[in-house]
């Protein structure tokens, strides 16, 4: 257990942020080690519903979402596997007058941020999408909304990293981190890791990792639930989101329908438990059935829950950890699955070049005060 590993960069967390950062660094010739307290690609990155929706992003994140689509499109070739990426376009729906008002109000900000969105009246919606019920009073349409399969990305990425020589240490617990000197030292139960730079990309655990360095980065925990139906004839060709973000729905290429919307299960980071809240998941399904009655006859085959780390302003953490020259963070993006491939690239640029091709100041990990 006294083994020692050295690399240019050590990344704590093997989710979408950490592995895409690793990919970019490795592609730039950096040696990288990834440490994960569990399995890589097993938490939020693996168990999210795979939405790559532009319409449900906060306006400041829209330009990044658009840029992320380009990264996504190039991904199959880059990691050598089909990730089931489909840009179907999507409807963001409203079912109450208040939600209609909200949709209209959001339209302008979205357009200013560069998102092509169109408001749709009920007649137009129902002519175009007979599978949406009369409960839908209005919708906005965005041709860019997409989805991809989280469980296809992970293995492809993992294999590519292995080929690029990235060292991946799973089920490895960090005991202490020392970043005071030029070289960062991590003591773990699998030996010591040394590197010139440290990246914290530990999702919901990122606040805890930062705390090991005496830094306060506020992270709260969401436990999002998702349900999936049996395969069905292909009907729902577009992804569906909700004016209040309480429903996401898509039919993926194997015919199953994924139903989510951030309905909360229960759980805590300490024991890694995430449990289904049986009341709330039924409410999630009630809403889905109200919007798409064609789901009613389908069997629900599985439900699950996954962590999501959230910052106080719901914007991600991306950049240098205040007080350190050699510690970075990429975490807690709402819609991290969408943004992760781009954020990995931006953080790679920052580490390699000292600057990024898109501004990241708004995501500064120190913005809530780090004392």
């Amino acid at each position, binding site marked *: 257990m006294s083994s020692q590993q050295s690399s240019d960069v050590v990344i704590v967390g093997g989710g979408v942020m950490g592995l895409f950062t690793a990919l970019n660094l490795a592609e730039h010739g950096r040696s990288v080690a990834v440490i994960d307290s569990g399995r890589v690609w097993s938490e939020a990155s693996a168990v999210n519903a795979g939405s790559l929706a532009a319409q449900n992003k906060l306006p400041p994140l829209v330009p990044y979402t658009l840029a992320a689509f380009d990264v996504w499109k190039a991904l199959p070739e880059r990691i050598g596997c089909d990730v089931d990426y*489909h840009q*179907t376009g999507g409807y963001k729906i409203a079912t109450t007058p208040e939600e209609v008002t909200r949709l209209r109000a959001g339209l302008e900000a979205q357009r200013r941020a560069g998102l092509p969105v169109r408001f749709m009246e009920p007649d137009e919606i129902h002519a175009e999408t007979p599978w949406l019920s009369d409960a839908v009073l209005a919708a906005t349409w965005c041709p860019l909304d997409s989805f991809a399969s989280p469980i296809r990305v992970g293995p492809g990425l993992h294999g590519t990293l292995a080929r690029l020589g990235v060292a991946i240490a799973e089920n490895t617990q960090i005991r202490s981190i020392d970043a005071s000197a030029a070289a960062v030292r991590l003591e773990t139960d699998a030996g010591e890791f040394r590197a010139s730079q440290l990246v914290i990309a530990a999702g919901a655990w990122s606040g805890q990792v930062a705390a090991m360095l005496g830094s306060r980065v506020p992270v709260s925990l969401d436990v999002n639930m998702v349900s999936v139906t*049996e*395969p*069905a*004839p*292909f009907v729902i*060709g577009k992804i569906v989101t909700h004016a209040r973000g309480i429903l996401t729905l898509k*039919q993926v*290429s*194997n*015919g199953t329908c994924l139903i989510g919307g951030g309905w909360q299960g229960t759980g805590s980071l300490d024991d890694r438990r995430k449990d289904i809240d049986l009341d709330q998941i039924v409410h999630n399904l009630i809403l889905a059935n109200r919007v798409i009655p064609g789901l009613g*006859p*389908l*069997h629900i085959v599985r439900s699950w829950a996954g962590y999501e780390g959230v910052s106080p302003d719901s914007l991600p953490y991306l950049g240098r950890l205040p007080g350190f020259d050699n510690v970075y963070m990429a975490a807690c993006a709402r819609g991290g699955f969408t943004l992760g491939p781009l954020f990995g690239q931006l953080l790679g640029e920052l580490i390699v070049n000292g600057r990024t091709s898109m501004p990241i100041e708004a995501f500064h990990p120190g913005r809530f005060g780090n004392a």
Partner: protein
Amino acid sequence: MRSAQPIGGIVPGATVGFTFNGTAMEGFEGEGLAAALMRAGIRATRSTAGRGEPRGYYCGMGVCWECAVEVEGIGTVRGCMFPVREGLVVRSPSVRPKEDL
């Protein structure tokens, strides 16, 4: 080939009519759809979405879903668990999703 046969001494329910993939069939009221199809000599009751391989009755206890068929107005049912009744419109499930999203 000897067909699937009712066991001697068992008096089945009344004969009822239903359709399977558009073909008129006869079943005994109350027997499983899978049993009725087996008696009619239909062994593959569906083909798989991915490779188009034939599948039929296998576990007989509602576990494997291999005998799944679609009943109009109801949805996918397990053929071994769903009783035949007059007028059912039954199809092999068409789960092959559209290739091009």
